[in-house]
């Protein structure tokens, strides 16, 4: 599909699963960002890639343009039920400024703060009440908080597995965050059972998503020009074939009827003297004939 090359999934996905205490170290380095997914000792899963392979070269190309990169940080804040928001972790990323003015966030890393004791209590209360755990991000990463915070929330009971599993999808448009989807990575069926987490550590999965380009409406005149001969051959051949193919079921009975009529006509000529009373009596006559003999 040639169209596929036009499709640019601009989503970049970087994944990190981390304990909170690593945060400081990670924030400082930025030389190793490109390798961070693999180098990380604690990431049990490979990097989830939403983007098709085609996208990689374009990113690489931009990559070699280090002057346009800038390092940014923004915080994830959380709230327990209706409490106020407080800091819960930090995202750090590189903001690439493209030659045509667009901006893209790449190489996102996330470091989660560990729950303090009060927070653990608050979270346990949430679990008991099946209440909401809410997070928020600035709507613009360059000038946080931007116009307004982008909020997402989840029933607290959806998070605990072994640890606390969270799945964050950040929908980006340039330097703007449109929305954030927050929840558990798996299912969370409705009668939510109360379950306390085994470990009070977060397994964080983070995905950056930007919008897909719609495929172009196919314009066929050109394509037909290219492959017109076989196209037509395919289209017209069945039409010619289909006359017989279509009507054989009518033509054969018709033929049979005609043949039948012809034979009957010849029979009629034979039985001319006998059948003066019409068709139905003639049939009856024939039916009763054996009995007579």
């Amino acid at each position: 599909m040639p169209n596929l090359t036009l499709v640019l999934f601009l989503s970049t996905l970087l994944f990190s699963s981390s304990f909170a205490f690593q945060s400081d170290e990670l924030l400082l380095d930025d030389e190793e960002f490109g390798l961070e997914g693999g180098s990380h000792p604690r990431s049990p899963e490979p990097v989830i890639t939403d983007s098709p392979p085609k996208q990689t070269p374009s990113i690489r190309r931009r990559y070699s343009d280090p002057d346009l990169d800038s390092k940014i940080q923004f915080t994830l804040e959380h709230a327990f039920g209706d409490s106020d928001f407080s800091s819960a972790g930090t995202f750090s990323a590189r903001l690439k400024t493209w030659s045509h003015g667009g901006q893209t966030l790449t190489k996102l890393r996330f470091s989660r703060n560990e729950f303090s004791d009060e927070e653990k209590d608050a979270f346990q209360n949430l679990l008991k009440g099946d209440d909401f755990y809410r997070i928020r991000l600035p709507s613009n990463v360059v000038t946080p908080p931007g116009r307004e915070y982008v909020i997402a929330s989840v029933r607290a009971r959806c998070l605990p597995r072994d640890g606390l599993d969270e799945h964050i999808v950040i929908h980006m448009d340039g330097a703007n965050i449109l929305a954030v989807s927050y929840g558990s990575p798996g299912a969370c069926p409705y009668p939510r059972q109360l379950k306390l987490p085994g470990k009070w550590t977060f397994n964080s999965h983070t995905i950056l998503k930007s919008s897909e380009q719609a495929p172009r409406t196919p314009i066929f005149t050109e394509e037909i020009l290219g492959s017109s001969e076989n196209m037509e051959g395919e289209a017209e051949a069945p039409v010619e074939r289909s006359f017989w193919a279509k009507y054989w079921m009518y033509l054969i009975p018709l033929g049979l009827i005609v043949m039948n009529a012809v034979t009957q006509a010849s029979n009629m000529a034979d039985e001319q003297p006998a059948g003066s009373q019409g068709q139905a009596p003639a049939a009856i006559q024939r039916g009763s004939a054996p009995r007579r003999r």
Partner: protein
Amino acid sequence: MAMAIRVCLLLLVFLSSAIVSFSLYEDQVGLMDWHQRYIGKVKHAVFHTQKTGRKRVIVSTEENVVASLDLRHGEIFWRHVLGTKDAIDGVDIALGKYVITLSSQGSMLRAWNLPDGQMVWETSLHSAQSSKSLLSVPINLKADKDYPILVFGGGYLHAVSAIDGEVLWKKDFTAEGFEVQRVLQPPESSVIYVLGFLHSSEAVVYQIDSKTGEVVAQKSMVFPGGFSGEISSVSSDKVVVLDSTRSILVTIGFLDGDISFHKTPISDLVEDSGNAEILSPLLSDMLAVKVSKRTMFVRVGGEGKLEVVDSLSDETAMSDSLPVADDQVAFASVHHEGSKIHLMVKLVDDLDTVLLRESIQMDQHRGRVHKVFINNYIKTDRSNGFRALIVMEDHSLLLLQQGAIVWSREEGLASVTDVTTAELPVEKDGVSVAKVEHTLVDWLKGHVLKLKGSLLLASPEDVAAIQEMRMQSSGRSKLTRDHNGFRKLFIALTRAGKLFALHTGDGRIVWSMLLNSPSKSEACERPSGISLYQWQVPHHHAMDENPSVLVVGRCGSDSSAPGVLSLVDVYTGKEISSSDIGHSVVQVMPLPFTDSTEQRLHLIADTEGHVHLYPKTSEALSIFQREFQNVYWYTVEGDDGIIRGHAMKSSCAGETADEYCFTTRELWTVVFPSESEKIISTLTRKPNEVVHTQAKVSTDQDVLYKYVSRNLLFVATVSPKGAGEIGSVTPEESALVVYLIDTITGRILHRLSHQGCQGPVHAVFSENWVVYHYFNLRAHKYEVTVVEIYDQSRAENKNVWKLVLGKHNLTAPISSYSRPEMFTKSQSYFFAQSVKTIAVTSTAKGITSKQLLIGTIGDQILALDKRFVDPRRTLNPSQAEKEEGIIPLTDSLPIIPQSYITHSLKVEGLRGIVTAPAKLESTTHVFAYGVDLFYTRLAPSKTYDSLTDDFSYALLLITIVALVAAIYITWVISEKRELSEKWR
């Protein structure tokens, strides 16, 4: 060239092999459909009765219609619906044969031929700025064999020839900012006086030569207080104006070019001074002023002295003055008294002389009289008679003559804002079928006729008889429920706040009701209707109850104005109850719960972020409390570009004692970047839509599961630059982004951007798909894109053994908090037409395939099979795919003339299409509204579950009888023959 032919051929082949087109025969028109033509609320009316022949009245309306009505019967001779932005400013008759209309703020002047409504000429006038506009057709002004029409608009005064629309001269007033208020023409003079205000504080009079447009003289005078806009010209050299404080009447005399002011405070005329208002601006030597609900008649004396002649306490509507015989001038006034209205025609000079006094019984549900237009005629006894055209509060138009209503038109139906459906009552046992189906002889006769018709033996009279019989057949206009659900009521709410129940059979009004304010307070005299909801639809329990609808209204145009709820019985059209709810109405949410009497629970959100539960009963409260945790809602802030999700928090007991009021909290937000995206369209699925099956089996034994969620929101945004007219931006500047958002968690499930595309977006959302229509700037064409969403979490349930052994998750409850595993398929097609609205057919069980109903720019409705907008269409579908009904991919969607469900009719000013299922699965009701109303019944996959109306039962019966007879006869004959054989 050859290529093009080949392409056409290919297309033809594809189409002819693929299409089951919907169409009907000529004699089927009007059997299932009806069409009603309206014009809207009348703004201006001009009578044309001088000559012998047809008496007519030319009207222009708020729906931008200019029409000629038959004065005897109220029928439309002709009408023209101008565009939505082409509001009519004035209408008049010139030369006795042309209707002149001025529209688009005085920049478009048109002449229509009076008898047949053909356009004679059209002149686009130069307009520099927006200003009030004025049309003046001087009666006896003649300039060089031409009859100029004077038009002011957009800062220019134009004189336009009435004969051919040529601009004779124009005068530029844009530099000064001069606003023309009146054009007066002294008799027997070629000089016209143009009076206007400069910055609404200086009165200026120009004397202009009507032949050349040259200014002969100019006088101006500053009035320190400033004027308000209202002006009343009382004679050829005097006008009366209100000053800016609305407490002083200023008489401006401009005799011979000298301007003089004469101030009269309102308090001198009447004790209780308040803000005054000048009524009916065309009364000669007389002025009607409304001060604090009293109407006063003020005579203007010779030196600009004012004196009160008469006053009416009640609200009164008045007509312009009308010259009657002997240089006298009369005017009409109408006021209410109880259930009657009183029409009086008086002479302006002598208010005690009442030429006509009539009392007419008036339907309470028409409200007050808004406008009166009078016309006189010579009675058989040579005295003067008057007829009055009145416009009521519900926008209806009535003609009064000789103390009776000669005809009436329900023009409220030209401005339908919301529609819902309702069932008719079940047939009572007392009514026997025989009464309806007449006698057996008639029945047989009818069928013999039908038989003749189907055997092509019928004479023209027979055909007419058959047609008539079809129309009456099966009592399609009966007021009871039928077995197939073909008879229903459409409940329509109009902008005037009136509720109409229309019968689907013939479109007649079963009942109508004007909304009332329960408190009758000053602030909320007449609430305006916002929306309609099904309140009570009894079917399981409470069968004795009548169904009812909820009308949500508002006291005033502001969104923070207090709301009004009204419950209306659908069978009788009586208001069951109505209440001032004491809070504003921002959003009304029907909940999926009903109480024991099948009243549906509704939540109403106000501007303070609280939601209120209705009905206010303890039972409803307990039902709601049970589901309290699971109630979510969302708000769309279109101007800010933010969508917010909310959940219930607690009762607002802390703030108010109202236990039916709840506070909410914010769960999620989606913030669109204001510099690049602006919300232009949001859409959800219809809450009552039925989906027959979640699985979609394709021919290669694969199963796709539709992602069917009630909580999906479709949002379309464009770049702020691209929010304007099509073509106002370059493709690079504009992008269209569409979203599918889960409204429980705020997850963006799908996001697709169309570069170089622009709104307006018209979309339809049904089952698991969205179809939307927009403009592609790069291709210079309209496009239609379909997005289908499929559930992947159920995709493993393909193994039959798994299903048999119950190892599947098909019955597991779906939670929005689970991570959605879904994928989308989408495809775009070009569509040749611009679209006004899109709807989709809906059937009782959702089995029948769907059709898109596209309201085109030509005010017609096109039915397009959903199969054409299937994202799985490929260029060369395999044999298996063809069998499944997949149409080969084409780049544009076909427009087949036979599939216009409106056939030859037009639904002028089309605004919306409503579909409702009939009981018969194959059939769906379609109701389209705009200035006109149109209804039809559609069967998207043909009526596979019933015989057609014109099925000849008689032929079947006769065949059976004949067969039985033949069998018997042959049996007898054979017996005889056998006997004789045996005897031989």
